[in-house]
Every structure is written in C-alpha cells, then in structure tokens.
C-alpha cells in the first residue's frame, strides 16, 4: 500500500490526527527553545555536518581504525553485509551461550534487519525494554517514530494492553502507574537475561569505544546485568575522534526532544571482567547509498527524529503511513535506496517546504534529496511504458497531485499527467483538508510562521 492510501486511513479519525499533529509539534517546539539557548547552535550544526562529510570520505579508514582499537580492547568485531547476515551472527552468539531469552534496548538497525521475528522463529524470546518499544511490541506493531516509538498511541490504549499483558487495573491510564507496572515487569526480565542487545549512537574510531544514549537507563540495565552485550551498529555511525562526541552530544538530545542531553550516555570501551562485548558492523544497503552521490548525505543522519517532528506530512499522516522502518523525511530518502519499487511513493510524501533540512542537526539537504528521488522515480516510470491504470495501481502517479498543498513545487511533475487523473477523485489530502477537526493553517501560513 502506498503512502497516500495509508495516510487517508490515518486521517479518517480526524480528532486523533489533530492530536498527533499537535503532540509532534509540541516536541518540535521544545527543540526550538532548547537550540536557542546555545549561541553557537548553527556553528555546531555546521561542524557536525563537516565531521560527517569527512567520515564518509574516509569511511574505510575509520572503520579499520575502529576495528583495530575495539579488538585491542577485547571487543569482538563482526561484519555483516546485510540484514540476514546480521541476524545469523546474533543467533550464532546466542546459540553459543545457549541463550533462549534476551533483552534489547532501542535499535532502529535491529528493526531494519527484522531481528525480532527472526529470533522468535528460532525459539528465542525477545523483550524490547524501552517503554515505548515494549508497548508497541505488546501490540504487535512496529515503532511509529524512531525516538518516540509509541507516539501514535493514546494512554487508554496503553492502559488496555497493559491490563491484558501485565494485569494492571482496568481503565487506569495514569502514566506514572503504567510506567511503574512496566518497570516491575521489565526488572524481572533484566535480572534474568544472559544476553543484552543494544544499538549504537556513535562508534569512535580513535578509541574503539561506542556510545549509547538513553533516558530510561534500559540499555544499561540490560547490558550490565547480562554476561554478553551485543551492539548492532550501522557502518555510518562511526566518528573519528572522542572530541567529536562533544559536538554530537550537544546536538542530539536538543534536536530530538529539547533536553540538553539524554540522562544516560554510556561509553563502552572494554568488557567487564568475565563478560563479552560483541559489535556487529552492518552494511545492509549503506555502501549502495554511499555510491549514490546525490543521496550520499543521507548517511550523515544521527537518528534524532527532528525531521519527523517538524514535517507537516509526518505529523498529519503518522509513522505507519510510510511503511518503512525509518519513517518521515529521512526515511523517505533512505527507504527508496533499499527497495525503490516498494517505497516509490515516499519521496512524494513531502511538501518540499524544507523544514526538515532546517532542523537537521547534521544539515542533510533532506528536501532536495526528496526532490531528486522524485525525478529518479519519474524517469524510471516514463521509461517503463505501462498503462496509466497500472501506474495508478502501483501508486506512483497517484501521489504527486495528492500533495498539491505544496503549490508550485510539483508543477514540473504534474506536467507528466493527463488532466483526467490529476482532477479525478484521488486527492487524499484535498479531501482531508475539508475535515473541520484538522488544523486550519494553510501551508503558507505554516511556512511563514516557522521561517520567522
């Protein structure tokens, strides 16, 4: 299913869509206030962007340096070409330790690799320990946001599922009460787990250490109680030096939630006595993205989620409408690289307003890359002379005019379309904009407000 179809589903509950929009905007607002307290904010973004440019230019050098130093620190380093290999490596480690139950803190990469279903198929219980992730795991859903996995859920829905899974009082939707129930439930899991999996925020080539940031402390509760720590790291997560952490840690939490820093920032350098640390360096399409010059920049992403919170389309269509592990503007650049056919509607899920690029802490030219993908996709479609109905069916041509709230931006693309389609009843956004519950702000007003 393509983005507009799923967005339409999301928008069919107008009140919920409005609430979602406002909740995300609230987070974006906190990011603004927080960034304004740092006079050198723009300079920091520029630095972060240039450090990452250098990383991509010398990626192999830094990876080798990281590997060498990590090994010298007694960390076991594995390399995985793709998701399948990553999952096999993890399973191999679990089997070696005869481990049947693991705890896992938030890792978008393991989501990308579909590690949970893979391990479950092999009889291993996977417990996601980030509160938001545990909630969506109970509901058999993927996260709808990379920083706030359960942002799409109302507290009563969480109360209901906790009542079912954790026997909390029916109807009690007090966030403190629910969090304590999860705390008690997950404590048992932490105390019992022999292996803990985490993601990686930054790997430092100079020292071979890696850094994991959380607010809940769940990553640390897992790894310090387990015998084995497996860290899954995308190869682009490398940074050259320890001093660069100063730049990135100043930007990450402020961009993500408006906090000055996450409450726990753990630097893993070598395993504790008698324990093991494994790091799995994963490619899974990253080297291909590196080779696409126009889209190379997307590998600079530090997964702060700011581009999602600010995006007028994300806020009004929900994370699930993207149908990709990383939703929102950055996901719409990354996912077509992984599977162009499946994700061809995503680059059109944007007004091209540029707000994503404005907030991005590593200054990725997100909206320009979205535009580039549109051109690639349109070219591919033109070359592929199928009937119009086929094009509508696969959702590609159904999309551009669906976003005509972005006015002039899409005129180029619209030229390719016959009027009969442009003005047919397929305009998802047009329809939904008539709903009285939705914000009345036009795109222009929104743009003005946020540019000032």
């Amino acid at each position, binding site marked *: 299913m393509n983005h507009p179809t799923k967005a339409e589903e999301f928008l069919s509950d107008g009140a919920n869509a409005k609430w979602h929009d406002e*909740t995300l905007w609230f987070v974006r607002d906190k990011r603004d206030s927080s960034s304004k307290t740092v006079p*050198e904010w723009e*300079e920091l973004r520029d630095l972060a962007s*240039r*450090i990452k440019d*250098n990383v*991509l*230019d010398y990626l*192999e050098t830094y*990876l080798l340096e990281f590997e060498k130093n990590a090994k010298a*620190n007694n960390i076991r380093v594995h*390399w995985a*070409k793709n998701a399948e*290999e990553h999952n096999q490596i993890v399973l*191999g480690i679990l089997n070696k330790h005869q481990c049947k139950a693991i705890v896992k803190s938030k890792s978008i990469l393991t989501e990308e690799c579909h590690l949970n279903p893979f391990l479950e198929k092999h009889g291993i219980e996977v417990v996601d*320990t*980030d*509160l*938001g992730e545990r*909630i969506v795991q109970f509901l058999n859903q993927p996260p709808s946001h990379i920083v706030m*996995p*359960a942002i799409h859920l109302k*507290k009563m829905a969480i109360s209901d599922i906790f009542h079912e899974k954790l026997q909390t009082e029916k109807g009690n939707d007090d*966030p*403190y009460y*629910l*969090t304590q129930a999860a*705390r008690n439930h*997950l404590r048992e899991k932490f*105390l019992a787990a022999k292996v803990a999996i985490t993601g990686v925020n930054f790997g430092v080539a100079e020292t071979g*250490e890696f850094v994991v940031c959380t*607010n*809940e*402390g769940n990553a*640390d*509760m897992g790894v*310090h109680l387990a015998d084995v720590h497996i860290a899954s790291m995308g*190869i682009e997560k490398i940074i*050259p030096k*320890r*001093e660069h952490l*100063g*730049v990135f840690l*100043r930007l990450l939490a402020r961009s993500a939630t408006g*906090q*000055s*820093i996450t*409450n*726990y*920032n*753990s630097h*893993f*350098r*070598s*395993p*504790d006595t008698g324990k093991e640390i494994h790091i799995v360096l994963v*490619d899974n399409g990253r*080297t291909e993205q*590196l*080779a696409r010059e126009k889209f190379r920049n997307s590998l600079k992403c530090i997964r702060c989620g700011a581009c999602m919170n600010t995006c007028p389309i994300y806020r009004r269509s929900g994370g699930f409408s993207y149908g990709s592990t990383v939703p929102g503007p950055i996901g719409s650049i990354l996912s077509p690289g992984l599977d162009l056919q499946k994700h061809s509607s995503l680059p059109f899920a944007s007004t091209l307003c540029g707000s994503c690029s404005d907030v991005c802490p590593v200054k990725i030219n997100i909206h320009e890359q979205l535009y580039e993908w549109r051109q690639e996709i349109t070219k591919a479609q033109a070359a592929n002379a199928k009937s119009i109905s086929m094009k509508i069916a696969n959702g590609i041509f159904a999309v551009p005019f669906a976003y005509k709230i972005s006015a002039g931006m899409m005129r180029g693309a619209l030229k390719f379309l016959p009027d009969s389609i442009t003005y047919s009843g397929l305009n998802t956004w047009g329809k939904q904009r008539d709903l009285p519950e939705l914000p009345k702000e036009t795109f222009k007003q929104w743009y003005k407000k946020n540019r000032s």
Partner: protein
Amino acid sequence: MVQKKQIMSSRDYILSKIRNTPRDKRPLPEIPDFKVDGELMDRFKRSLLMNKGEIVDAKQLEEFIDSHQFKKVLSLSEEFRSFSNLDIPDDAHQLADMDVAIISGQFGVAENAAIWLEERDMGLRALPFITEHLVIVLEKDQLVSNMHEAYERIGKGASGFGLFIAGPSKTADIEQSLVIGAHGAKSLRVVLV
C-alpha cells in the same frame, strides 16, 4: 572455521565496496573554543533542575536517608561512608533491591548537568542504574562549562566503561507525559562539597 571465513569475506567485501566509491577528501574541521565565561555553578544547578535532579546538602541527605529508614545503602564516597551498611557484592544481581547508592562524580558539565563517572567510581557498572535512589557527590570546583571542555578533560582516559549521567531515569513514552523512574534510579541527588 567456516563461519570465520564468511565473516572475513563480508568485512573485505564491505571495505572494498567503500574503497571503490570515488569520493572527495574533505578534511576534518577544527573545533573552535566555545568555552563560556560566567557562573558555572549557577548554570549547573539550573540544568540539573531541568533534568529533574536535585541539589542537596549533607544535612538534607542525612534527613533523606534517616526519614526513609532505607535498608540497603551503599556509599563509595568517603564523605558519607557512615551511611553505608553494605559492601559491593561480587554479582550485581545482588543489588536488585538496594535503596540508595552514594558515589563520587569526577566532574560536572554546567550546560547540561551531566556528571562524568568512570568504572572505578561505580564499584560495579550496574550500580548507578539498579539502585532505587542515586546520590552523586561532586566537588564544587569540579565543573566545566560545556561538552567540549568535558571531553578535553577526559582526554585519553581509558576506563572500560564511562558514563555521563544527567538526571534520574525518565520516560515520556506515554502521551509525552514525563514520568520519573522508568528502569533506572528513581531520583538523583547531587551533593556539592
């Protein structure tokens, strides 16, 4: 053995794919000196409050511990050794029901109240997380202004595990309502000495 061979080949495959991608040679930027003057202590305190931590003095700490009649208190800080009624166990699992841990931080960062700890400050890596309440003792003159200065200060330090801790465990995963005490310590008190 077979598995090892495969792993090696993936490594080389990934590296060669990167090598075969023509790229620029953009240099690393210099990080300028962003140090700020002004009152570090005041900033530190404000940052800590924002993170939902608290500043207490020795007397308030004593009251806190006495009034709750905590059963398991472990102090690694010399200053407050008298509160301690517990030794560091061999296995962190034995700390599952501990009430208060008192440890010393190396230095604090004014811009965000992050406090730097290394393995030797924690006794066990799990300690600052598993304890119900965490108290960090920090010397008043051990403050730096921002994260750049912080990493300068850490320098080449090679602790197996290092941690910036800036507040109690918290979450906002349920409708963005802030809840203190997710999985780790339910409170953070900082004693400035």
